[in-house]
């Protein structure tokens, strides 16, 4: 393992004490015989959680300087994995080898006492995070400065807001030197400027050759920090690849799970004839192709075909398509009426094409929501993607700016046309 700093080999993890068989039997016997409700307790078998593995046969390697994002649904085993890497809990089976000092950026405020002042708690946190005493004393003033708590630093932390507490914990954490950083969703609290400060620190850490493992549900953050990714589901690795493909797989999986829930809903209101106008489906065409596309490329012309069926004549409708990131940020909305395309009326069955020249979305997964509105009141007749799952738009490939300069997710979400001059 030359520059491999984390090596995980067929790791299994089951929580709890690995008791010898006879102790388990004795426990069950006790439970049966001491329980007041005899009948109920004999029929009850071992708790279902007993044989539950939080991690199943997980293997991967991380090289020095790599930034690895770990994503997945709640309960997929992400935090368990970090805990094992931090050495807090032992693996049930498998081998974990680590080369370097690990710093878990997890629960940064663990151990603080509300009656102690910020300064006292900073010393305590420093000790908990593994700083020796002389280093703590040398760094207290730096920590004070970083936290930006001013007079509050010498007040008991029970008076702090949650954001101030977060600043205290993070302020101490940045002073700890380490080779491997394990980050677990710590930036959820704190105001925006503080979040930015934290992100910059992590970026800087990664840029200086530090190895980062990041667990987060915030896709934009994972994307911006990590190059590689792991998608965990029910304790196993589903995908281990570059972060973009991993995010696409993850979002796809969630989306298809939601879709399965959604189909029944759609089927039921299919029969409801009281809607005056409905969207039957939305198709996506790439370029001049006649075939609907599953994926589109960044920079190509894209057409959204909105099929409708109206049960009566609808005057002055407008069609709208809105674009969203996987994190729920609305990128933009295009509307036929705002675009200067006025429709007198629609009736019966038909479709409306919305054409976006040179799609300015960088590779990634996006959601689109489509609606039919009354152009004047903007009240909607029908819309999809709001009460039901949105339509997924997968953008792959990189737009070539010039011969070998390609835009990647690192560059952001949208592509802006730009002109440059020098004088």
């Amino acid at each position, binding site marked *: 393992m030359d520059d491999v700093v984390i090596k995980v080999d067929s*790791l*299994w*993890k089951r*929580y*709890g*004490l*690995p008791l010898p068989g006879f102790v388990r039997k004795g426990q069950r016997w006790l439970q049966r015989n001491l329980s007041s409700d005899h009948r109920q307790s004999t029929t009850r078998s071992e708790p279902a959680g007993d044989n539950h593995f939080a991690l199943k046969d997980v293997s991967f390697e991380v090289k020095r300087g790599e930034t690895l994002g770990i994503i997945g649904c709640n309960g997929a085993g992400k935090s368990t994995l970090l*805990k*094992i890497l*931090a*050495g*807090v*809990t*032992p*693996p*049930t*089976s*498998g*081998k*974990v*080898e*680590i*080369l*370097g*000092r*690990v710093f*878990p950026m*997890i*629960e940064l405020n*663990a*151990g603080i*006492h509300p*009656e*102690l002042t910020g300064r*006292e708690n900073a*010393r*305590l946190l*420093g*000790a*908990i*995070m*593994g*700083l*020796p*005493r002389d280093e*703590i004393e040398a760094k207290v003033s730096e920590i004070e400065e970083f936290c930006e708590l001013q007079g509050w630093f010498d007040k008991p932390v029970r008076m702090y807001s949650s954001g101030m507490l977060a600043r205290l914990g993070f302020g101490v954490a940045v002073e700890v030197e380490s*080779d491997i950083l394990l980050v677990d969703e710590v930036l959820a609290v704190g105001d925006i400027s503080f979040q930015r400060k934290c992100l910059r620190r992590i970026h800087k850490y990664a840029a200086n050759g530090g190895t980062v493992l990041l667990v987060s549900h915030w896709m934009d953050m994972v994307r911006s920090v990590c190059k590689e990714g792991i998608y965990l589901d029910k304790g196993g690795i589903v995908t281990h690849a570059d972060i973009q493909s991993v995010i696409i797989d993850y979002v796809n999986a969630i989306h298809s799970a939601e879709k399965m829930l959604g189909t029944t809903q759609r089927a039921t209101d299919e029969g409801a004839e009281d809607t005056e106008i409905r969207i039957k489906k939305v198709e996506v065409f790439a370029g001049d192709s006649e075939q609907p596309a599953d994926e589109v490329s960044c920079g190509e012309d894209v057409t959204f075909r909105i099929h409708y069926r109206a049960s009566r004549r609808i005057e002055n409708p407008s069609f709208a398509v809105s674009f969203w990131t996987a994190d729920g940020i609305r990128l933009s909305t295009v509307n036929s009426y705002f675009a200067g395309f006025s429709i007198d009326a629609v009736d019966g069955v038909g479709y409306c094409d919305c054409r976006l020249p040179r799609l300015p979305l960088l590779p990634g997964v996006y959601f689109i929501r489509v609606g039919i509105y009354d152009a004047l009141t903007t009240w909607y007749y029908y819309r999809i993607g709001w009460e039901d799952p949105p339509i997924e738009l997968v953008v792959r490939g990189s737009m070539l700016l010039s011969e070998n300069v390609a835009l990647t997710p690192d560059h952001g979400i949208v592509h802006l046309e730009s002109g440059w001059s020098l004088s």
Partner: protein
Amino acid sequence: MKALSKGSYINHGRDYRWLQFATLLWALTYRNVVSRYRKSILGPAWAIIHPLFYMVIFTFLRGVTNFSDEGIPYPIFTFAALVPWTFFANGVMQSAPSVLLNANVIKKIAAPREVFPLSAVLTSLFDFAIAGVVLAGLMIWYHIPVSSALIWLPVLMLVTLALAFAIGMFLASFGTYKRDLVMAAPFLIQFWLFASPIMYPLSQVPEKWHLLYVMNPVVGLIEGYRNVLLKASAPPMKPFLWSVVMTLVILALAWPFFRWMSQYFADVV
């Protein structure tokens, strides 16, 4: 499912040094001490209220029963035993839930888990120091002469600390999984108080019970404190040696047990 081989975790880069351990131990003890007294009116005076209270009760009880005082004024006779006893008792009672109380720290860092019961024992050492000042004042009041036997004091304290740490580790390692021992600790200590020569001297225990009575490792220690502080003599050799042996035995059993159990603390707290 195939049988799984035992898991292993090796960190080539981790060098958890003594200095870090000492810093953490100090920081946790500081937190325990300061947080306990900061919001109270009497503050550290609470450290002496507990043994003083018992002293008053025992002195009163002595009016109705007949405890021997071996020629020493009874209040100081019992107080000299109550102060080290309180040190021991608080050490045990605070280390029993120490792992549970530090659950969020345990889930986060891989520091040796011994730091939690040990800091609990050190916290009670702080109280011992305060009560010790009052004890010294009382000794002056009763004109107890200071002797060279006092050099035994650090030895006695070290053994007391080790015994409290060992029993605390045992209670903590078991109590973290099933709460029974954590809940039983105060009751156990209460019982132990009467089974130790605190309100009465060892000499008053019937001879035929001595062998059994001295099994209690606290007996040699308490009699030791009394000898050293009040009688200007060394601890009674046989009970004291027995205390040392028992302490070492309990430590030798409790520590490996704690080591093994502590690996899984993060799983269950």
